[in-house]
């Protein structure tokens, strides 16, 4: 049962939610809310932004300032909001298709700018809402409605993408590690710049049913059995790491945050007067 102060963040008027029973996204929403509460955030000063997809319905259920935008574009909206009011805490929740396919450009540029937004990428390897089509994170060989013979596309590694593009906090956990999810989101919120927390989630309805993970429990067990913490992964060979989910904090570094750079610019040109 969620704590009362966490329950306060739910927009109860809008329930019931539209996620399937057993969906992994609820675990992530709970982790986000615990992280916000424990970070001392206020609902009036917190923005939850999203694009389109199952994961992107989350802002509707959260009683803060919430914006459900167009497919893939949430980070561009969030960038405008953060630039307009840097005092706001912004958590941008995205699915794998939203983040790495249609929204890939906004994702890498938000990383590059290092703007103070926390992106929570809920990666369930599939387009769930539209009926189980392959996404850029569908593992090769996995089946989807648009990959009936198994996917042949090489997948994106969200964390490597974020690291390469300049994000200053990058971490990965699975829904089988809810405490770790919460901790990483908290660390991401505490980071002044752009943070990416990839959370491996499950869609037993669309992905699992075609890939021998029919039930929610199948998926949790799969994540438990196939996750490797970064500390252990560093001493493993690429062959041993094949098909494994490496969890941990990949990037923690300091760099100037975008809205602070902008504020300096305003001061430099005398606009603050």
């Amino acid at each position, binding site marked *: 049962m969620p704590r009362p102060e966490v329950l306060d963040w739910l927009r109860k008027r809008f329930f019931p939610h539209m996620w399937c029973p057993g969906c992994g996204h609820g675990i992530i929403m709970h982790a986000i809310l615990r992280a916000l509460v424990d970070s001392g955030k206020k609902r009036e000063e917190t923005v939850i932004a999203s694009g389109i997809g199952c994961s992107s319905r989350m802002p509707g259920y959260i009683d803060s300032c919430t914006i459900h935008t167009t497919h893939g574009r949430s980070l561009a909206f969030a960038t405008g*909001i953060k630039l307009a009011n840097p005092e706001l805490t912004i958590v941008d929740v995205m699915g794998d298709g939203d983040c790495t396919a249609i929204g890939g450009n906004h994702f890498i540029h938000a990383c590059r700018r290092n703007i103070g937004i926390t992106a929570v990428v809920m990666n369930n390897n599939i387009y769930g809402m539209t009926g189980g089509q392959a996404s850029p994170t569908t593992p090769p060989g996995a089946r989807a409605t648009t990959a009936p013979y198994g996917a042949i596309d090489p997948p994106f590694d969200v964390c490597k993408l974020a690291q390469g593009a300049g994000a200053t906090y990058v971490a990965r956990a699975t829904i089988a590690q809810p405490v770790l999810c919460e901790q990483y989101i908290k660390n991401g919120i505490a980071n002044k710049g752009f943070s990416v927390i990839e959370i491996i989630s499950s869609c037993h309805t669309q992905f699992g049913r075609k890939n021998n993970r029919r039930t929610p429990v199948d998926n949790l067990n799969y994540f438990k059995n196939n996750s490797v913490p970064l500390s252990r992964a560093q001493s493993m060979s690429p062959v041993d790491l094949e098909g494994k989910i490496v969890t941990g904090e990949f990037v923690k570094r300091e760099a100037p945050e975008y809205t602070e750079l902008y504020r300096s610019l305003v001061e430099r040109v005398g606009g603050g007067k």
Partner: protein
Amino acid sequence: MSRVEFWQGNVSLAYGAIAAGCRFFGGYPITPSSEIAEVMAEEMPACNGRFIQMEDEIGGIAATIGGAVTGYKSMTATSGPGFSLKQENLGLAYMAEIPIVVVDVMRGGPSTGLPTSIAQQDVMQARWGTHGDHATIAYAPSSVQECYEVAIKAFNMAERFRQPVLIMSDEVLGHMREKVIVPDKETLAIVDRKKPSCSPEEFIPYRPDPEDNLPPMASFGDGYRWHITGLTHNEWGFPTNCPEEIAKKSARLMDKVNAYRDEIVEYETENVEDADVIVVAYGSVARTALSAVRHARDKGLKAGYFRPVTLWPFPDRELEPLAEKAGRLIVPELNFGQMVHEVERAVHGKAAIAQMSLVNGELFQPSEILEKIEEVAG
């Protein structure tokens, strides 16, 4: 004190926007609109406003909407290809009722077309570009002075009606330099969006006030918590499949322009009272048309001039009686016929309409329109 400047249309438009209170600009470079972004890049930081060059056109309008929901008067500017790219998020601003101003400095199309040449091929896209029914407010300025003025009007309308407002400028206007009389700031009528007067606990974000059928708008960060979505939603801003709620929301999106149509519509006329033939033209073409009409008058022909300042809503009721009286209209456009269909609709067959199309990257010559007037009048 008013002052005089010698500005390009794009520069004038940018300063008009700033005078209207624009303090957020999100954009992406594109010819022939880039000077607007360049002025904003210089001026926004200098007045503690916000400027951001986004990674693409889609991001440009997305960030602009983000600025608007955070309380800023926000604008983006683009041209043909970029206007196409912005259409989806433009739709979100209609649905979510977010006030923004979008400038399209029209160039030739389709596709990359003619980046440095004038056209008027986007005027129907302005009306119907984004999918789904919505009511459009679009201005077509025809002088550098008017670029300044419509920028202020566009912001006032956007703020008042909580919706996007378009400015359909064109390449010639954008790059032409003319004298601009910059009015004294104190003389400007500036409209700011209606804010909720209730407490955050009582706030229902999309419940319209009974007196004007328009909902007040809170800003992210000012104490109110609310949900924004592009899904069709109820008064709480939450997605709905309830037919009554869908019908109510959809109708209100149309009504907020239709009900105030007379206050929004603007047009200009010259010599229409006794005219036998009226030239209906907008944007840069209207300048050529006016010159031709005056020449025709010098020659003793009873020619008149009608210029829609708002393309949408179109001044149909205003044009109809004049058209009926004159009996003949000429509609020159830099496209193969777009607003001419709206003119046909407006006059209900009460006047003969001669269409003039030019699609070669250039403006009409006054002599070409004059010849048409002579042909039609004779």
